[in-house]
C-alpha cells in the first residue's frame, strides 16, 4: 500500500508541475506582456525600472524558478479586477463549488448504481433499451442548454424551484438552500450518471459472466449474496477509476452550470475573470482546481486500498 500511495503522490505532483509549467509557458508565449509596459510615454530608464521590479529582465529559467518559489509560499499574484490576493479570493468561493460538485456526485451515484447494476444483470431487456436511449440522449445535451430549458420550465413557467443563486436573501433555512441546489445539481449530475450507468452496465455484465460467479451460486449462496460479494465487490475498483477520470470533467462542467444558475462558486468566478481578462485570477483558479482534483484523486487512491485488499497488502 505504501509503495502504491507514494507512486500516486508522485503522479499527483507531476500533474501539478505540468499545470504550473504550462501556465508559466503560456504567460510568456502570450502576445504583449505586462500591460504597464504598453504605455508609449515610458522612457527607457523607467521601462527598465519596471522590468527590474517585476523581475522580467531576468533570464527565463530564473523567472521560472522564482515563480515556483512564490507559488510555494501561496502567493499566486493579485487579481486585476478585484485588487485582492487571488488565492484568498478563490478560496472563499471554493466551498460553494465543492458543495455543488459533491451533491451532484452523490446524486449521480444514487441514480447510476442501482440502474447500472439492474441493466447489467439483464442486458438487452426492456429496461436496458430504455436506459440506453436516455443515456445516449443525455450525453448529447449541452449542460448549459439543459440548464436554460430547466430554468424556463421548472422555474419560470411552473414556479417550482428558484431560477438561480444559492439562497433567498434574508432566508437561512436548509429547505431554501436545498431548493436552490436542486436544479444545478440535477444538470451537473445528468451526464455523469449516463457515463456511470454505461460503465457499470459493462462491468456488471462482464463480472456476472466471470468464472467465479456461477460456482458461488452453485454453492447455494442466495442471489443477493452472490450479487453483493462476487459481482458488486469486483466492480468497485474499476468504478473508483472511472470516478477519478470523471472528476476533472465534473469540475469543468460545474463552471458552466454555476454561470447558468448564478451559483457563487469558483467556476463562475473563473468565467468572470476570463471575460475581464484578469489572467492572474484565471491562473490562480486553474492551479487551485488542479490541486483540488489531485487531492480528490488521492482520496480515491486511499479508497482503492479499502476496496481491494490486494492493493493494501502490496509492499
Amino acid at each position, binding site marked *: 500500500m505504501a509503495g502504491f500511495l507514494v507512486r500516486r503522490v508522485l503522479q499527483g505532483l507531476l500533474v501539478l508541475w505540468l499545470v504550473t509549467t504550462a501556465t508559466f509557458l503560456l504567460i510568456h508565449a502570450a502576445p504583449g506582456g505586462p500591460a504597464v509596459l504598453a504605455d508609449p510615454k515610458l522612457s527607457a530608464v523607467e521601462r527598465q525600472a519596471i522590468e527590474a521590479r517585476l523581475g522580467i529582465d531576468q533570464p527565463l529559467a530564473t523567472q521560472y524558478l522564482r515563480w515556483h518559489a512564490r507559488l510555494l509560499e501561496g502567493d499566486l499574484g493579485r487579481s486585476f479586477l478585484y485588487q485582492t490576493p487571488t488565492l484568498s479570493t478563490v478560496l472563499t468561493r471554493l466551498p460553494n463549488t465543492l458543495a455543488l460538485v459533491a451533491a451532484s456526485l452523490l446524486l449521480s451515484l444514487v441514480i447510476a448504481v442501482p440502474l447500472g447494476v439492474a441493466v447489467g444483470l439483464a442486458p438487452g431487456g426492456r429496461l436496458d433499451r430504455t436506459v440506453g436511449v436516455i443515456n445516449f440522449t443525455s450525453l448529447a445535451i449541452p449542460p*448549459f442548454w439543459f440548464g*436554460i430549458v430547466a430554468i424556463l420550465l421548472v422555474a419560470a413557467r411552473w414556479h417550482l424551484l428558484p431560477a438561480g443563486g444559492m439562497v433567498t436573501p434574508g432566508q437561512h433555512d436548509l429547505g431554501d438552500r436545498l431548493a436552490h441546489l436542486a436544479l444545478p445539481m440535477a444538470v451537473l449530475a445528468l451526464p455523469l450518471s449516463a457515463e456511470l450507468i454505461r460503465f457499470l452496465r459493462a462491468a456488471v455484465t462482464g463480472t456476472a459472466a466471470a468464472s467465479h460467479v456461477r460456482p458461488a451460486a452453485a454453492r447455494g449462496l442466495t442471489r443477493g449474496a452472490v450479487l453483493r460479494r462476487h459481482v458488486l465487490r469486483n466492480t468497485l475498483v474499476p468504478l473508483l477509476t472511472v470516478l477519478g477520470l470523471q472528476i476533472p470533467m465534473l469540475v469543468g462542467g460545474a463552471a458552466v452550470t454555476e454561470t447558468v444558475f448564478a451559483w457563487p462558486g469558483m467556476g463562475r468566478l473563473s468565467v468572470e475573470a*476570463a*471575460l475581464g481578462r484578469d489572467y492572474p485570477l484565471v491562473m490562480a483558479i486553474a492551479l487551485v482546481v488542479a490541486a483540488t482534483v489531485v487531492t480528490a484523486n488521492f482520496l480515491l487512491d486511499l479508497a482503492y486500498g479499502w476496496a481491494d485488499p490486494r492493493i493494501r497488502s502490496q509492499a
Partner: protein
Amino acid sequence: MNPGRHAYHRAAAGIAALALFAFLGPLLYRADPTLVDLAHTTAAMSWAHPLGTDESGRDVLARLMSGGRVSLIVGWSAGLVALVVGTLAGALAASRPRWLAATASRLLDAALAVPAFFVLLVIVTLFGAGTGTLIVAIGATAWMGIGRLVRAETLTLRERDYVAVAVALGESRPRLFLRHVLPHLVPTLTAAATVGVAQAVLTESALSFLGLGVEPPQASWGNMLTGAQQNLGAAPWLALYPGILIVATVLACNALSEAFRRRA
C-alpha cells in the same frame, strides 16, 4: 443504442443534412445573419423571417446557418487536431527507448488528470478567442483519450508476429508504426475521432455561450443561446433552435462513432 444494419447510413445522413443546412443553406436562403433591425426584435415566425428574429432583430434562420458553419468547422478541425496530437503522443508512449516511452506515458496520464476546461480558460484569456485559437485550444485539451487508446493498441499490436518479422527485416521504428501498426488502428481511431468531434462541438458551444468563444456579431450556436437566455421571458423559442441543432449534431456524431465501433 441498438442500431440496426442501417445505423451507419442513418448517422452519416444526419451529419450530411446538418452540413448541407450550414454550408449550402445560405445559397438558397440569402438573409443577412448580422443585419440588426431594432424595430422588429424577438418577432415570431413570418414569411420574412421563417424562424423569427432574435433580441436584436436579426434573422434567426440565417444565424442558425452561419453559426452552424462556425460550430461545425471548429468542431471538425479541433477533432482533427486532437486526433493528430493524440496519435503522436500515444505512439511515443509505446515507442523505444524505454525511458522516452515511460516519460511520455507518465505525462499522458498526468495530462488526463488536468481539468481541461480551466486550461482552456487560461488560453482564451491570454490569447483571445479567434476561430484559430479555439481550434488549437480545444484540440490541445482533448487528445488524451486518443493518446491512451493508441498507446494500448500499439503495445498489443507490437507483440504480433508480422511486426517481429518487420523488425527482423530492419525496418525503422517510425516506419514500423506507420506501415504495420497505424493501418490496424484506423477503425478504432475513426470511432474515437468522431466522438472527439462531438465533444469539440459541445466545448465550443459552451465557451461561446459563456462569451469566451466565437464573438458576436458572428453567430455560433453557443453564443446565440447567450442572447436567448437573457430573453427567456419574451422569446423562449430562441433558446430551442440552437440547442436542438447542437444536440442533433452530437447525437449524429456519437451514433456514427457507435456504428464505426461495431464494424471495427
